[in-house]
């Protein structure tokens, strides 16, 4: 207990115990953290601007790993996701319809394509501005399947085997809801949910289910994967999940 005596730190004589720098560093770190929370909005805007321009000139892609470094982030709820290509991919439309249908990738590509350019907003905070999505309007596939009058909602299933999503029939018929085949003017890659994903422009991005494989028309909304874990079913950007982001559509 009597270490450091010769250099002036003596625990038996409080006036000689030395300065409590440790406590000051500890409390200072806490205060800095609190100040960081308070000062975050302007700091974040500044950093996003700086990192955004740095990322444009960064061939290594390392800036993408920094917080708010811009761009998409990969979220998967399954342990591994099988890959599907033009040969193996199928999209089924069934449930409360008169004409259940199965589409191949070529079938979907042969239908009229719609291109939308909107911001993508994730419920965890990141936003990717002006992202083009291109594909078939969901309403077109629903009309082709002849939805029965008792139908109220759609359930989406995915070939990752785990993820599910839902929309009301009215939401699904909106013109800005696509079965997307292309993103950023490229065919959808596997890590972005390719070859085919849902794109629900006005809602938080968890509604835009990746690796879409099934569209089932139902008589009630069945909450999807994240919705069973606390997220809002009606996920309008800026008007749900307790967030006030600028609307995307």
């Amino acid at each position, binding site marked *: 207990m009597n270490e450091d005596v010769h*250099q002036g730190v003596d625990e038996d004589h409080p006036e000689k115990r030395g300065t409590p*720098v440790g406590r000051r560093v500890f409390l200072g770190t806490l205060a800095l953290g609190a100040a960081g929370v308070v000062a975050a909005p302007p700091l974040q805007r500044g950093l996003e601007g700086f990192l955004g321009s740095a990322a444009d000139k960064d061939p290594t892609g390392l800036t993408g790993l920094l917080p708010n470094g811009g761009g998409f982030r990969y979220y998967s709820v399954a*342990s591994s996701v099988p890959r599907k290509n033009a040969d193996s991919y199928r999209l089924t439309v069934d449930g409360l319809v008169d004409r259940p249908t199965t589409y191949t990738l070529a079938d979907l590509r042969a239908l009229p394509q719609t291109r939308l350019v909107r911001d993508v907003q994730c419920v965890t905070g990141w936003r990717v501005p002006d992202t083009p999505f291109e594909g078939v309007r969901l309403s077109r596939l629903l009309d082709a399947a002849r939805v029965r009058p008792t139908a109220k909602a759609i359930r989406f299933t995915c070939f990752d085997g785990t993820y599910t999503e839902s929309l009301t029939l009215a939401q699904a018929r909106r013109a800005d809801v696509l079965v997307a085949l292309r993103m950023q003017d490229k065919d959808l890659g596997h890590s972005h949910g390719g070859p085919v994903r849902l794109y629900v422009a006005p809602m938080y991005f968890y509604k835009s289910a990746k690796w879409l494989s099934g569209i089932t028309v139902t008589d009630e909304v069945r909450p999807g994967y994240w919705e069973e874990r606390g997220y809002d079913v009606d996920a309008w950007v800026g008007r749900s999940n307790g967030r006030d982001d600028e609307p995307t559509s």
Partner: protein
Amino acid sequence: MSLRADTTVAIRRFSRAQRWVHRTTAVLMGVCVLTAACLYVPQFAELVGRRALVVTLHIWAGLALPVPVLAGLASRAFRADLGRLNRFGPHDRTWLRAALHRDKSPASRPAGKFNAGQKLYASWLAGATLVMLGTGLMMWFTHLTPLLWRTSATFVHDWLALTIGIVLAGHIGMALADPEARRGMRTGSVSSDWAEREHPLWRP
């Protein structure tokens, strides 16, 4: 065979309680860092997936992180070491100045049981851990705090996580470079030679 090697004796540095506090804190921190990497780095996220499970692991390891230190307060030796980590004497200023000038000679690096760098590391990490806990809770219980707070908490949590990761890498790197320091944390004892060289002002 030198005379020094013959006269060196084992000195008690850490009690069993202190070593267990370090061990359990290290495991919990390791789980936090690894799960954070799987949530955050796209390559790891693609490799691991299972997002809901990884989130659960991360949250519970984070909540438990302060527990070993709080439990350690029951140990007299642990409390005494906290006191040593807290107090800075004139020699700590000398040590820090030498560290800033990259002066590695033992004469310019006077230290008690803990050197000034270890003291700063411990105090900063304790504060940073609590900031991570606070901002993490704000992100988890989304309906408790206003939205602006939550976005700000995410910002602080992300950047502080990166900082902690770098500092931890330094901590582990220095431990890897000093087998005797590791032996102290593993077995509780160090050689008197090492103590005399690295911690000349320590009077066990």
